[in-house]
C-alpha cells in the first residue's frame, strides 16, 4: 500500500485530484464538497491514530468541535483573519489532545477508548454550558473574511479551492509522517508493542505525539468547516460524530491513505442523498454498514481493492 509505487496507483491519484479540481464545473455543489473534504481531513487524522498507530479514540469529535468553536469565535467576535483562526483552532485542538493524551496514554485497548470517550464528554458539556458557544443554538454568523487579508473568501468557488489546497497539503503531510522513521516506529508499535518496548523505544512518547498530531489535524478540519458553513454547533462535539468517523475510516480502509477519504466522501454523500428521501433510515443504514464492515469487510473499500490487486499480481 505504498504511495505511488505503481503506475496504477499514480493513475488513481491523478484521477482523484483531477476530479477534485473540476468538481464545481461538472455540477457538484461546492458547499457539499467542501463539507465532505473537511470530514475527509478529519477521517485522515483519525486514521493516523487508528490505522497507523493502532489506537482507537472514541472521542475524536471533541477535538474537531472545540477547534470549530474556537475558530468561530475568534473570527466572528475577535475579528481575527481566517488563516490565523485556522491556526489557532489547530493549535488549540493539539493542546487539548496533549492534555487528554497524557491521561489516556497510560491505558491500553478498550480502556484507552473509554478514557478518550469520558474526556470527550466533559468537553461536550463544557461546550454546552459555556455562554460563548451559544449552547443549543450554536455559534452562528461566522464571516469568511479575507485570506491573509487579500483573498476574499465569500465566493463558494474561491473558498472551494482553498479547501482543496488545505486538503491536499494535509494528505501529503500524513503520507510524509507515515513514511518517515517516526512513522515506522508507530507501525512497529501497532504491530507488536511489547517488542517495540523491548527494543528500547519509549512507546508512550511516540503514541502521545501521534495522538497530538491526530487531534491537531482533526482541529484543522473543524476550524475549516466553521469557515465554510459559518457556524459551529453541538453536533460537532457530540459522541455520535466520534462514532461516525470510526465508521468512515473502517469503511474506507484502516491503515490506507485513500481509505478515510473514500469513507468520508461515501458517508457524507450517503447522508446527504438519503436524508430527504428516507429520513430516519439513514441511521439504520449507517448502522448496517457498521455491522457488515465488521463482520465481512474489515479491510474497507480501499483495503479490499488493494488486496485484490495484490492477488492479481501474484498470479
Amino acid at each position, binding site marked *: 500500500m505504498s504511495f505511488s509505487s505503481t*503506475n*496504477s*496507483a499514480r*493513475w*488513481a491519484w491523478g*484521477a*482523484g485530484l483531477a*476530479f477534485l479540481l473540476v*468538481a*464545481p464545473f*461538472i*455540477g*457538484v*455543489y461546492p*458547499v*457539499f*464538497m467542501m*463539507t*465532505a473534504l473537511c470530514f475527509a481531513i478529519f477521517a485522515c487524522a483519525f486514521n493516523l491514530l487508528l490505522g497507523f498507530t493502532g489506537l482507537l479514540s472514541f472521542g475524536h469529535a471533541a477535538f474537531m468541535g472545540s477547534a470549530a468553536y474556537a475558530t468561530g469565535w475568534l473570527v466572528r467576535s475577535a475579528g481575527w483573519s481566517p488563516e490565523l483562526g485556522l491556526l489557532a483552532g489547530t493549535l488549540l485542538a493539539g493542546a487539548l489532545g496533549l492534555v487528554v493524551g497524557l491521561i489516556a496514554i497510560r491505558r491500553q485497548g478498550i480502556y484507552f477508548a473509554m478514557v478518550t470517550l469520558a474526556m470527550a464528554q466533559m468537553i461536550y458539556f463544557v461546550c454546552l454550558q459555556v455562554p460563548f458557544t*451559544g*449552547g*443549543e*443554538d*450554536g455559534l*452562528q*454568523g461566522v464571516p469568511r473574511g479575507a485570506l491573509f487579508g487579500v483573498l476574499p473568501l465569500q465566493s*463558494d468557488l474561491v473558498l472551494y479551492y482553498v479547501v482543496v489546497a488545505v486538503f491536499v497539503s494535509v494528505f501529503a503531510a500524513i503520507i510524509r509522517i507515515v513514511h518517515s522513521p517516526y512513522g515506522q516506529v508507530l507501525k512497529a508499535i501497532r504491530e507488536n508493542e511489547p517488542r517495540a518496548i523491548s527494543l528500547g523505544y519509549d512507546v508512550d512518547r511516540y503514541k502521545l505525539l501521534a495522538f497530538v498530531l491526530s487531534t491537531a489535524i482533526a482541529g484543522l478540519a473543524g476550524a475549516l468547516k466553521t469557515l465554510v*458553513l*459559518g*457556524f459551529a*454547533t*453541538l*453536533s*460537532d462535539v457530540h459522541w455520535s460524530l466520534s462514532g461516525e468517523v470510526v465508521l468512515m475510516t473502517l469503511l474506507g480502509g484502516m491503515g490506507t491513505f485513500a481509505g478515510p477519504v*473514500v469513507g468520508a*466522501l*461515501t458517508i457524507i*454523500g*450517503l447522508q*446527504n*442523498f438519503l*436524508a*430527504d428521501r428516507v*429520513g*430516519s433510515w439513514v441511521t439504520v443504514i449507517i448502522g448496517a454498514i457498521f455491522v457488515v464492515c465488521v463482520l465481512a469487510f474489515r479491510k474497507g473499500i480501499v483495503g479490499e*481493492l488493494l488486496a485484490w*490487486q495484490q492477488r*492479481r*499480481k501474484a498470479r
Partner: protein
Amino acid sequence: MKLKKLTAACTLACAALLGAAAPAQAQISGDVIKIGIITDMSSVYADLDGQGGVEAIKMAIADAGGTVAGKKIEVLFADHQNKADIAAAKAREWFDTQGLDMLIGGTNSGTALAMAKVAAEKKKPFIVVGAATSALTNDQCTPYTVHYAYDTVALAKGTGNAVVKAGGKTWYFLQADYAFGAALQNDTSNVVKAAGGTVVGTVKVPLNASDFSSFLLQAQSSKAQILGLANAGGDTINSIKAANEFGVTKTMKLAGLLIFINDIHSLGLKTTQGMYLTDSWYWNKDAEARAWSRKFFEKMKRMPSSLQAADYSATTQYLAAVKATGSDDADKVLAHMRKTKINDVYAKGGYIRDDGRMVHDMYLMQVKTPAQSTEPWDYYNVVETFKGETAWQTKADSKCPLWK
C-alpha cells in the same frame, strides 16, 4: 495495462457516484415558484407544526389554484431535528441548488435564527411561523425576516399580566435551555416585575429532558406561588405531568407560557382546566376559522394549531404578492407584502412592520372545564383580545436598526 485501467476506472466510478450523490449546482427555478419549510418533524415539537404545517401550505397552494403568475408552485420540506446546523445547511442548499423562492421557518428559535442569517445572505424572504424568540425582530432583525405568528413578548404580555392580576405575584421558572426558553423567561420576568411581582428563581432544563423530577423539586423548595413553564411542546406536557405526580400542583399554580391546543389535547381537560394561555388563533373562534379547520381536520384527523393556520396564511399572502407584482423577486414581493393589509382566516387587519413583525391581534384564552366542552377539541374560552399594537414589542424597547 489492464490493471491500470481497472483501477482508474474504479476511481472514476467512485467519483461519478459521489457526483451523483452530491446535490447538483443551481438550476434556475425559472418556471417554478418553490416554497420551502424546515421544521421539527420528528421530535419535541413535531405535532405543533411538522407534517400538519406542510399540509397547511399545500392547502394554501391548492386554494391559490396551484399556479401563480403562470408558474407552477412547488413545496419542499425538511426535518431539522431541532438542530441549527441541519436547518442552516438545508436552507443554504435549497437556495443555492433548488432555486428556493421563499423559506418558511418552523418551530425552534435556534434554527430560526440560523436560517434568518442564511436568508439574509441569499436575499430571499424568510417567514418565521413556528419559532418564538423576539430576537428575530429585535437585535437580530434583517430586511428579509418576517416574524409572522407569535413571539415571546406577546406571550409574556398576555399570560404574564393575566396571572399577576389574578394574584400570582411570586414566580419560579422552568426554562428550556436554549434561545427560546431564555427569551421567554426574560420577557415574562420583565412583565411580571413591571406588574409588581417578583421572580424568585429559575432553573435551566436541557431540551427534550426525559425526567423533570429534580427540577420540580427545586421549584417547590423555592416556595413561589407560580411555576412558570418557559418551554413548549413535549417538554411542557412532561413538566405538567410530573408536577402533578410530585404534588407540586398542590402548592404552586402552573403558568404554561407557551401552550398549544395539541398540548391540551394530550393532557386532557381534567389536568389543564382553568389554565390561562395566550395564542394567536383558535380554530373555533369564528365561522371562517371553523370552516377552514374542518377541511384541515379531514386531512390530518386533528384540529389545526395556530402555527399551522399561520403557515396557511403566510403562504397565501406570499402567493398573492407574487401574483400582484408578477415576479418572484424577493425585494419586490416583500415590499408589496409590507404595503398590504392581511385579511384572511388567520388574521384580520394584520400588517408587517418595519422590523419584520407581523402585527395582528392576540388572544388570552382560558381552558374550559370538561363540563363546558361540547365536542372534541373544544377547549378554550376567549377571555380577552389584545388588539394589534398593544400585544407586541414597542419601538422604545426595540434594538432593531430597521425600525426607527
